[in-house]
């Protein structure tokens, strides 16, 4: 029997979209392999999400009570559930948290792992994982040969498919042991309202926004669209916005459905971070800017006129 185990993720007490995405992907794999899907949620009060995960194909939900996120503790808890359930495939989110604990889980359970996967298929009873490599200039297909195959999955890369599973809730209470890393304090005021790496729409600004005082123009559009605010390296290095907003080679890799680049010329290091966006809109005064080579829709124009007009137009149609 080839069972699939997925590890979900929460944010501010809500189930993240990536949890549904990988449950759907897990369901597809389990159907191809003739197995069951177990979803694991770590945190407090997570039982209530069983129905949400059952609706996208989870047969059972294992809940593990734990306090705030700590990579070391969570890795121990998740590895303990994996050892008990002994799945042949494990899917985890390639999120900030996932990158923090998934490497430990892989070593703890003796699994090979392919990270930052965007495609999952089944061939000869084994999962084939596709991932962009070399800044998206090639794609690699890999199989994991260990008995447990682990994959971290890029947010926004998997479709959410409604498919009913049983959704039975089971509570596990493995011992986590003491964490060697102690969290002293947290400052969560600096980030996006919408998480950049998981956003389905991103409004991003570059040198063309001219100064930090102009972010509200882009934020206005982002708010109407429920989008995250991104920035190019030029805007970050100029000190106009925090590095946590940077998209590109030394910033975040993003794969939204729609990336709206405002006043961004499109250096290759920027394209490396956003080139896999499904649709790209470029608004730039310079019609020769390299960003237009990747843009699905290009507007050669002044962002200070086009972006507010776009915000107004979206307000009108989105009500």
């Amino acid at each position, binding site marked *: 029997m080839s069972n699939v185990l997925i590890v979900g993720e929460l944010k501010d007490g809500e189930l993240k979209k990536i949890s549904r995405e990988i449950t759907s992907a897990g369901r597809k794999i389990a159907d191809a392999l003739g197995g069951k899907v177990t979803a694991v949620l770590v945190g407090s009060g997570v039982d209530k999400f069983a129905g949400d995960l059952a609706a996208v194909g989870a047969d059972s939900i294992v809940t593990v009570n734990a306090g705030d996120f700590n990579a070391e503790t969570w890795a121990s808890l998740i590895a303990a559930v994996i050892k008990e359930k002994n799945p042949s495939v494990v899917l985890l989110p390639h999120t*900030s948290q996932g990158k923090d604990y998934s*490497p430990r889980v892989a070593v703890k359970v003796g699994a090979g792992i392919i990270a930052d996967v965007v495609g999952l298929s089944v061939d000869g009873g084994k999962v084939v994982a596709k991932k962009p490599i070399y800044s*998206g200039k090639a794609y690699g297909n890999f199989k994991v040969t260990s008995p447990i195959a682990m994959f971290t999955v890029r947010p926004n890369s998997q479709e959410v498919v409604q498919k009913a599973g049983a959704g039975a809730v089971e509570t596990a209470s493995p011992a986590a042991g003491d964490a060697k*890393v102690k969290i002293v304090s947290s400052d969560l005021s600096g980030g996006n309202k919408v998480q950049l790496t998981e956003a389905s729409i991103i409004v991003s600004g570059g040198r063309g926004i001219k100064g930090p005082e102009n972010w509200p123009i882009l934020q206005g559009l982002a708010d109407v669209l429920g989008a995250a605010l991104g920035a190019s390296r030029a805007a970050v290095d100029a000190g106009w916005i925090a590095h946590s907003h940077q998209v590109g080679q030394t910033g975040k890799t993003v794969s939204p459905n729609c990336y709206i680049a405002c006043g961004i010329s499109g250096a290759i290091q920027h394209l490396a971070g956003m080139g896999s966006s499904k649709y790209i809109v470029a608004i730039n005064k310079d019609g020769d800017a390299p960003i237009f080579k990747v843009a699905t829709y290009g507007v050669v124009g002044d962002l200070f006129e086009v972006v507010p007009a776009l915000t107004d*137009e979206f307000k009108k149609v989105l009500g």
Partner: protein
Amino acid sequence: MKIIVLVKQVPDTETNIKVGDKSINEAGIKWIISPYDEFAIEEGLRLREKHGGEVIAISLGPDRVQESLRQAYAMGADRAVQIKVDNYVPFDTVLAAELIANFAKSENADIIIGGRQSIDSDSSQVVVQVAEALGIPHVAFAVSLEISGTNVKSTKEVEGGTQVVETSLPVAITAQKGLNEPRYPNLKGLMAAKKKPIESKSPADLGNPASKIEIVGLEPPPPRIPGRKLEAADAKGYAEQLVKALREEAKVI
């Protein structure tokens, strides 16, 4: 203080990648140190400058990685070690981590530091896997690092902001942009680096871990949806067209 810095050699971002059957065509590729690993090297050097000890740069790969190790020498590393693997399954992070962990164990390292990810695979796995294999704590995405005695205090980037964490040596750290500003090697350093020895280790020297990954094949990236420049008389006209295109054609908003 013994500090091991992980130095991964990757194709320069501006290099064209030609896809072969199971590997890329290396002809004409310019190789560089993965940018995040430069933050790791710099941090290693600063720690040594403050606390004494030595910085050991380690890289996994065929002989071309010696060029990156010489660059680490030129920046100021004390020793350079190549784990010589010629037919390494690309991106088998667990295998790389086991080799590096076994080396770190033999050196009794206090700190292992590498970039938060390499720009050829974006996996963000190896450093934390090394920590697990050694049974030591890790701090991922560090933007500051202070060590006094065996106490480690670090600020790390987390979703939505930052966290201050404390732990103790030995520790593994992944370097995030913001941790420092990497130095440039000077000419004198570059000249001296040419003569320095590069130690060589084989997988057999390091426990000969087995690969857990099989490469099925490489392929070029999927074709992009063809783009077009919109034409309109004014900003309002562009806005109307864009909204229509994104809602009715692309159906993404």
